[in-house]
């Protein structure tokens, strides 16, 4: 079937969204940093936000690599 790669790419993106959510909820969210008494909560949220942003950047990077791999023939063309 023509264009099957696009369906595969959508499927991979879907799996990555679910896995990314799983990492966010199971690993990142439970992290608790209490080293600073007064600003502990802000520091805690800031670190989690930074990790989440890093995860999004990593997600885009992975998607970009997968895109090049799946569509290499079309992109070169």
């Amino acid at each position, binding site marked *: 079937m*023509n*264009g099957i*790669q*696009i*369906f595969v*790419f*959508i*499927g991979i*993106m*879907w799996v990555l*969204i*679910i896995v990314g*959510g*799983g990492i*966010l*909820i*199971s690993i*990142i*969210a439970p992290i608790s940093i209490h080293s600073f008494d007064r600003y502990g909560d802000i520091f805690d*949220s800031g670190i*989690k*936000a930074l990790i*989440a942003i890093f995860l999004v950047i990593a997600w885009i990077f992975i*998607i*970009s690599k997968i*895109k090049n791999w799946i*569509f290499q*023939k*079309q*992109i070169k*063309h």
Partner: protein
Amino acid sequence: MMFDRTITAIIVSIIAFIVVYALTPILIKKLERRNLVVKDYNRVGGAMVARPGGPSILAGILSSELVLYAFSPSTGVLAIILTTSLAFLVGLADDRKVLGGWFKPVALAATAIPIIMLGAYDYHLAFPLFGTVKIPALYLALIIFMIPITGNTINSIDVLNGVASGFMTIASFALTISLFIIHNYDVAIASLPLGFVSLAFYKYHKFPSRIFPGDSGAVMLGAMYGTIAIVGHVEVIAAVALLPAVINSFLFLSSVKRIIEHRQLKANPVTHTEDFKLMATTEKDAPVTLVRLILAHGPMTEKEVGHAIFKLALFSGALAIITAIMMDIKL
């Protein structure tokens, strides 16, 4: 209660569909009389097509959502009405005057203010299988980013006859079904007008188009979709249903590496064969887009490309519904 909801759902759906279905031919005539037409470059001979169709779409959305608000007032419906109307104005400004690439994202970010001011959101982000995560500060940023992203994503897929309205019909009905699956009935009913205005507009927008939605139509449809996703707490499901359009924006941005309007492109991603079929261009500077990837296997008619995009929309819509079903499953 369920009977009342069913009646309300039927009434708002009928109003949304009929208003757009009846008003669009009148709008076409008015636009043509005022010479508000643009050339359809993909048509043999380059037919002149009326633009923008945004006003009739807005009329359908406002009439149905205001009736819904009269039946059951809620901050969610009010947020949908306000953000959608503001997004229409942003799109209309871009229809009237050629504005910079950054204007729309920034202005659309401002249209999210009613959602925040009305508190029509829940800062728990829900993921399938794993549950929810509380992100109070980050969620405000997500709201501000979400509306420009969905607005521009739908606008960027508005490149062929009928694609934006047809795609929006499929994605929004998938979102409505998902909202029913997760038992969020009130927002599900509020989302019905989006599907029905898109469907009614598709009648005139499909190949060969009699009217184009313009930025006021396409951006508004995307912004309303984003607002429903926030108000209905279905952000992830909404993103899944929108994946083909997201891929289009992602491919475009990763090839041009900056935010620009399509009209600013140096090379067109698509060209025509002698028999006026669409064909992927071989120009190096042309961006990679979803249409260009679809055409990589060979030339196709505009109608065939549109149908290929609808198949992708149906696939991602099915994935969105599966995601909604998975929301009840916890690992």
